[in-house]
């Protein structure tokens, strides 16, 4: 199994409080990796560091064998190889279509290509009818789907998803999950998925990472973590017995 991210001795503190301390973590290429763990475990922070949005205090992250810590620049090749979807979706001024097209526009994709790709993905998320609606008027569930479509449309190598289905109804959840699987199967995208939803991790993940208090408690392929966890904390969390 080839790893697209290799993380070594990563640490991060906010105002003296250590929120992340990872000795080693590898993210396999072309698969869906779920990061699970209680609130405050450092999952969002880890994702932001992978995307180069937050600098770590120490450590190295190799992305395709190149250390990206401190070397990522706005709009450079590595940055354009990945896209993050945040816990809360925000829309840019313009229509739903404009929002989804943004990543393609800034990559100077030809207009006809943009139209084709955006229409394709709109059909996939079932939002064709609202393509020309103004983005500030859409519902929360639609916004989350659009945010995912906006990150997927230019087919980045890596998708970093921070609880993309939080606060959604089951219909919306299944549509987003369909989209995530589509990215992996059709585009070969590596997906790092932070989720609170254990069932979702079970449904989607090939590889699972369990985090607590900023550290990796256990990681491994999905069957092993869910059927036969080594660590008691993992077992308690997965079975829902952990109080946090």
């Amino acid at each position, binding site marked *: 199994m080839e790893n697209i991210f290799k993380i070594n001795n990563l640490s991060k503190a906010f105002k003296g409080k250590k929120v992340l301390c990872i000795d080693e973590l590898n993210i396999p290429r072309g698969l869906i990796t779920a990061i699970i763990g209680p609130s405050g475990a450092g999952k969002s922070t880890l994702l932001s560091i992978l995307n180069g949005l937050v600098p770590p205090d120490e450590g190295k992250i190799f992305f395709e064998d190149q250390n990206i810590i401190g070397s990522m620049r*706005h709009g450079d090749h590595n940055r354009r190889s990945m*896209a993050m979807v945040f816990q809360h979706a925000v829309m840019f001024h313009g229509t739903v279509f404009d929002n989804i097209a943004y*990543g393609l526009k800034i*990559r100077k994709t030809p207009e006809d290509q943009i139209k084709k790709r955006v229409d394709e993905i709109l059909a996939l998320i079932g939002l064709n009818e609202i393509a020309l609606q103004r983005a500030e008027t859409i519902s929360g569930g639609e916004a989350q789907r659009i945010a995912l479509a906006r990150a997927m449309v230019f087919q980045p190598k890596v998708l970093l998803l921070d609880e993309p289905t939080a606060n959604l109804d089951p219909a919306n959840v299944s549509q987003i999950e369909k989209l995530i699987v589509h990215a992996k199967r059709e585009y070969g995208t590596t997906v790092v998925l932070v989720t609170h939803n254990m069932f979702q991790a079970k449904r989607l993940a090939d590889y699972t990472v369990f985090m607590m208090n900023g550290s990796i408690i256990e990681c491994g392929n999905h069957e092993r973590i869910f059927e036969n966890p080594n660590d008691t904390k993992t077992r308690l969390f997965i079975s829902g017995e952990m109080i946090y």
Partner: protein
Amino acid sequence: MAYFQEAFIMAIKNLLSFDPELYGIVFLSLKISTIAVILSALVGIPVGAVIALKEFKGKNVLINMINTLMGIPPVVVGLVVYILLSNQFGIFGDLRLLFTQTAMVMAQTMLATPIIMGLTIVALHGLDPLLRKTAISLGASRYQLVWILIREARYSIGSSIIVAFGRLLAEVGAVMMVGGNIRYQTRVMTTAIALQKGMGEFQEALALGIILLILSLFITTGIDMIRRGKVWL
């Protein structure tokens, strides 16, 4: 009250008389201030955006300086430009620009640039920080990031242009000092008002003031309609 009423009627009459001198003055006011506000926007918006988005040493000091300049009295700006352009001490004295329309545009541009710059910084600081992260994460380059955030803040930045334009149309100190209120050449509405008042023609001056107000109302409404009518991007 009757005095004001008469002035108002005089203003309307003057407007309807299509007196070329009056219209020349109105046109010059608009021309000088429009050019100055465009130049100020071209400098103030991008520079303000870069200051707002970049982290660097002395950023707060710089922002405080810009905020101070936002409130600088027009006569002071006029004086500075006067000195710069004068034959006696100025480094640009050889250009012979004093008491020309160019000098007036220069002074008004210096007046409006900090206003637009300062309000652009405020507008960008007021944006949801997630907009910036989202654009970066989707792959925006430095330049593309600045552009999309300016677009997101377009209402506030548009307002800053209206505020600056209003201030330029209304100011008298700077244009008087570097323009000199020369008839048919550098006389604008505010300097004409000052002149009429100086000659004791209070009602004439008041009528001009009313015309200035009517003009401001039209322009502000116009810009606001452009803004709401989605013409602006």
